[in-house]
């Protein structure tokens, strides 16, 4: 069965559900449809030819509706999950089948776990009109380093895939209110100031729609801004498995550690123990930062952390002041935190009570759907 992208919801995979929400909110998303189960359900084979005709395009993009590791072309079973520029019905059908088999991403497994179904290996597939952009790139609605309430835009000419996969250094802008900081004059800008401002407003709008800071893929074509993908900045599909050998055996709700409550709030996330500067690249947005203490070099980590737990310090520590600035819970002066907690272990940090606990079953249901 084909589901119009405008009607996509959670059953269609996170990427399609988010795009559906944007379409319903009146944003420009390339027209398309979703195929929930392209392997087990053959019904779509008869519908697809007329559906492609209805889209009125000559070139189509076929994508997995799950978010890859980095939002790019990653796949979980070694299969490419994106095909750009399919032209004939036969090519689209082939691409749909390939993408459907690209493996169950963590969110599909999590969704299946929450709905009590077997995960299977089939991912929902999105077929969309292919946009031929003049420029494309990414946009963050919160400054990824300082955590400031700014929009950061990266752009490159053409499809923008080179900017995403890192082979071309994109041009970058920061929008703060109506102020713009852009790339130097050494190269011709890919975007005009007016376009940067429009994109900034668009990003803000999308953030309002979802209620949390967003990481957005966009493209500009025919004087129009198209949204190709959006996801919360702090969510990431996590393939890291808890270190079982080191993991503390814990009962749901059990208090694992106590420390000084230093920044209020309660948050759930996977532990990442960072011992030194050289292991910063192991830290991912959404992790619970566990460390001895922090210096200025650690600020970018704090800006992206879900919560922070340190072994030393206290209410007045620099780490506490930064955690409150970023609005994340902090438990400081929790002795043994770096040895008691294991990488990948899900914990609940209560920065008001000063505790680190194992998640209860209820809390687990709300956790990022990667450990389901």
């Amino acid at each position, binding site marked *: 069965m084909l589901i119009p992208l405008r009607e996509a919801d959670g059953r269609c995979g996170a990427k399609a559900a988010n795009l559906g929400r944007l379409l319903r909110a009146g944003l420009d998303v390339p027209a398309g449809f979703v195929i929930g189960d392209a392997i087990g359900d053959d019904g779509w084979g008869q519908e697809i030819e007329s559906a492609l005709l209805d889209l009125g395009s000559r070139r189509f993009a076929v994508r997995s509706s799950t978010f890859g590791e980095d939002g790019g072309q990653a796949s979980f079973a070694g299969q490419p999950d994106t095909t750009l520029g399919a032209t004939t019905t036969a090519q689209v059908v082939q691409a749909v089948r390939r993408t459907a088999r690209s493996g169950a991403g963590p969110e599909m497994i999590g969704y299946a776990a929450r709905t009590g179904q077997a995960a299977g290996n089939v991912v929902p597939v999105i077929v969309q009109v292919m946009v031929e952009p003049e420029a494309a790139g990414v946009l963050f609605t919160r*400054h*990824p380093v300082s*955590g400031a309430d700014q929009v*950061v835009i990266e752009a490159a000419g053409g499809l923008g895939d080179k900017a995403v996969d890192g082979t071309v250094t994109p041009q970058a802008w920061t929008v703060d209110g109506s102020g713009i900081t852009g790339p130097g004059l050494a190269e011709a800008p890919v975007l005009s100031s007016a376009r940067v401002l429009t994109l900034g407003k668009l990003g803000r709008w999308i953030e309002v729609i979802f209620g949390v800071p967003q990481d957005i893929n966009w493209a500009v074509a025919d004087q129009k801004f198209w949204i190709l993908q959006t996801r919360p900045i702090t969510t990431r599909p996590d393939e890291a498995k808890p270190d079982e050998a080191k993991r503390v055996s814990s009962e749901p709700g059990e208090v694992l550690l106590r420390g000084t409550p230093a920044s*209020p709030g309660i948050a759930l996330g996977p532990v990442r123990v960072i011992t030194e500067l050289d292991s910063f690249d192991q830290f991912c*947005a959404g992790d619970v930062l566990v460390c001895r203490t922090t210096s200025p*070099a650690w600020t970018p980590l704090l800006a992206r952390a879900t919560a922070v737990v340190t072994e030393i310090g206290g209410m007045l520590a*620099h780490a506490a*002041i930064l955690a409150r*600035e970023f609005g994340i819970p902090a438990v400081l002066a929790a002795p043994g935190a770096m040895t008691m907690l294991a990488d990948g272990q899900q914990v609940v940090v209560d920065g008001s009570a000063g505790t680190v606990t194992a998640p209860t079953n209820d809390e687990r249901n709300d956790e990022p759907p990667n450990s389901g």
Partner: protein
Amino acid sequence: MSHQTPADVLVLHAVRTLGYGDTAHIAVRVGLAEDEVRDHLLDAQAHGWATYSSYAGERGWSLTEAGRAQGERLLAAELDGVGARAVVEEVYRDFLPLNDVVAAACTAWQLAEMGIGEQTMTLAETIATLQGPATALARVEERLTSHLHRFAGYHHRFTSALTKAGDEPAWITGTDRDSCHRVWFELHEDLIATLGLVR
């Protein structure tokens, strides 16, 4: 005559106190041309002392553990070379009680802004409290710069932030600007690095 730190050491050290920053930001901090600063950063990268990385959309420089150790060696050699170790140690002892005042004022203000805790520190009270450390910082900086010129600027940056805080409270603890807390945090890191201490 106050000692002028060589540019390559200044640049490496600025990466340490900034923690993370792009070439332009580092150039502003050390007061050198961006091209020159970039050359030093690339040298440091070639030595494995600095790394250029990206966090989500942002790119910038940070130190490696090797770079941190190298920086401390260079600063220690400089410190002993100008015979200022005793003075900086003494300054650091005087700095710590001031640090407590600044951290407490920042914390009280943040909690008041969040509407939690028993304290209800007003903005005016916070600024008045920070005036003490601001004044003391002038003398602290003077003692440091009489031996090492590279310590110049903290007092000016701190008082500038404090002046702006009256209209825009984000200048007290904001992370996206040269706020009072940020300047103070960098000075703390500078002293720790200079003396080779561990936090």
